[in-house]
């Protein structure tokens, strides 16, 4: 036996289900496909055949373990007191930050 709040929520669900849904015009698909063709819509990224997608996925994730490995290696091997006092150190840090920013921006631009 349902309680009053449960009945209220069920009634609310029914009302929400009643909200309008969009019905595309009958020729929407055909018009859109034609518009895409008319605009000469070129894929933003060159289409890859399906078998290549797994390889691309691997490449997509590769920078993360590589970066972590490089960081660990640097942490372990660099003579840090000497490296930090080197005049080149701030430039290297800035270049690293800029490169990271560029990579992240590039990835962002490739999301729809």
């Amino acid at each position, binding site marked *: 036996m349902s309680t009053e709040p449960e009945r209220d929520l069920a009634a609310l669900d029914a009302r929400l289900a009643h909200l309008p849904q*969009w019905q595309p015009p009958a020729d929407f698909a055909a018009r859109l496909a*034609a518009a895409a063709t008319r605009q000469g819509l070129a894929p933003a990224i060159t289409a890859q055949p399906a078998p290549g997608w797994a390889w691309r996925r691997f490449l997509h994730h590769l920078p993360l373990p590589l970066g972590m490995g490089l960081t660990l290696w640097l942490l372990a091997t660099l003579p840090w007191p000497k490296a930090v006092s080197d005049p080149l150190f701030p430039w290297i840090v800035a270049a690293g930050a800029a490169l990271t920013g560029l990579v992240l921006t590039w990835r962002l631009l*490739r999301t729809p």
Partner: protein
Amino acid sequence: MEWLGRCARGEASACAELVARYGRLVGTIILRTLGRGEDVEDLSQEAFLRVFRFLPEFQGRARLSTWICTVAQRVAVDELRRRQRSVLIAPADEALDLPSADDVPAAAEQQQRDALVRAALQELPEKLRLPLLYASIDGLDYDTIAMMLALPVGTVKTHIFRGKQLLRERLAMLAPAESRS
């Protein structure tokens, strides 16, 4: 899914098939997000053009429908941000400016109830309103909504539950007698 590959290569018939399969879902997501019927067709078109353009980037990590819904949601939210205010179907004042329950026929009563729901939804914070609205769309499960909103599934469920509670309170305030019917 062979047609998907043809679509990624820009073949018109395959693109039309994709639109035929997901057009209604994409349009409904945009409609619910914006709360207005106007511009839905244009924005749906924009969403599909983005889908066509970025389809080769789709790597199958999520379901195709989830990915398309995410694109549609982004298009709609971009538009929402552009308008800088979220209005649901009709402004609240307009929605409430209806004849009283005493002098409307039964058919119009349902319309009045729907208008009240829309007005109450408009008063909800966006982070509760959008998951709640998406959950009411056929074909959207919690996982898809979580992906669309970039939130954990548990958070989505919490937002929906909290949204329903708040909506019930708002409805009770807007029409105390109505909300009990």
